[in-house]
């Protein structure tokens, strides 16, 4: 891993992420007994959004969305270049903050609620992600992604609790049920469209592409738990994603209190016990 993989992420992640999103919609449709859209549908959607007018509520809103876009790419590129995991997590949080700020800035009640929920989501997933970094450090002795990925044994063997906590917060990052609070692809009528309510046209296309980058980055982080063998890693990443879709289609959205309480409890209990085990191991 080096800057080449980072650069490869910048150029190829949108294609992979878009395909993942299309695959997601197809599988979701099949689980609901429908035929579903073509696999390339997300690309059609973004292509269409680029051809639409861009309605501007406030100009500065775009700036925040663009920062979100750039920082999301930066996060993933840093991760795939084998950079420092803590810096990756920090820039992920920064990207999320800019996205939420964009929602606040639009000063519409719907996007305001969406932005508040986006912040709550960040607060919910942050402990599990941080614990994942801490656990990986305790096993491999480094925060560098390149060193962690080169560890000879699958990390999940030593970090089962942390992996469970990480899997638990995956629906938050993928904006899936039961934690699709800030904006959702399925529940279309609840708070209109949450944080993206006031985002339209080209800016919305930008947000979609940023989400594709995010998909690849988050799945990459899941891959890290199985990175000792590339095939095991790829297969398990696929399995994680499939499980995520099953969870998405078999659960209803929860209230934010439940999301925060459950994700913190899982992170602190499962992740905390795991860390305790690592400390007592030697």
């Amino acid at each position: 891993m080096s800057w080449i993989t980072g650069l490869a992420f910048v150029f190829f992640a949108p294609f992979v992420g878009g395909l993942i999103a299309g695959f997601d919609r197809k599988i979701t449709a099949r689980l609901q007994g429908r035929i579903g859209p073509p696999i390339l549908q997300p690309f059609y959607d973004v292509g269409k959004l680029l051809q639409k007018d861009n309605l501007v509520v406030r100009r500065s809103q775009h700036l925040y969305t663009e920062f979100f876009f750039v920082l999301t790419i930066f996060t993933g590129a840093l991760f795939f270049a084998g950079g420092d995991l803590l810096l990756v997590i920090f820039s992920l949080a920064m990207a999320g903050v800019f996205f939420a700020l964009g929602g606040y800035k639009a000063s519409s009640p719907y996007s305001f609620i969406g932005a508040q929920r986006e912040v709550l989501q960040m607060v919910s997933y942050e402990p599990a992600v941080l614990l994942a970094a801490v656990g990986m450090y305790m096993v491999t002795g480094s925060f560098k992604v390149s060193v962690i990925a080169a560890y000879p044994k699958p990390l999940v063997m030593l970090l089962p609790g942390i992996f469970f906590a990480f899997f638990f917060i995956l629906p938050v990052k993928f904006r899936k049920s039961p934690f699709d609070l800030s904006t959702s692809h399925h529940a279309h009528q609840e708070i209109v469209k949450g944080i993206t309510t006031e985002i339209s046209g080209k800016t919305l296309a930008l947000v979609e592409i940023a989400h594709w980058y995010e998909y690849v980055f988050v799945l990459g982080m899941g891959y890290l738990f199985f990175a000792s063998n590339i095939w095991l890693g790829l297969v398990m990443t696929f399995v994680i994603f499939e499980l995520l879709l099953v969870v998405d289609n078999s659960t209803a959205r929860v209230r934010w209190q439940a999301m925060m309480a459950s994700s913190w409890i899982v992170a602190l209990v499962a992740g905390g016990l795991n860390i305790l085990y690592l400390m007592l191991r030697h």
Partner: protein
Amino acid sequence: MGMLSKSPWVIHYDGSSCNGCDIEVLAALMPRFDVERFGVVNTGNPKHADILLLTGSINEQNKPVVLNIYEQMPNPKVVLAVGICATSGGIFRECYNVLGGADKVLPVDVYVPGCAVRPEAIIDAVVKGVGILEQKRAAMLAAQKA
């Protein structure tokens, strides 16, 4: 075919009606007809929508609402009047507060009569609307150049 015709996002608004057409609209999203095959998504947000699908007649109370939704949609956009009530006022035509069909307040592109409309007719209307969407896009580009 451009990208517009591959991903029409629909916003659905019901004026004053018996809800029969609305049930048919939702039926078109169900497994049997599954309009998502063609990329159609039922969105609740006018700012993401390409097609305004109106059912029911227009009255004094919902006139500003319909206009507001229409004005919030980014160009190019298309209006479908689905059901006989949205087309002409239908059975509610003679009511004291009813103005008539959707074309009393908005430029309607596709009329779909029927009581209630069949899901097949709605799908057909969306396909027709998508064609008009492409024409409007071409007109927009031509206007930009001029």
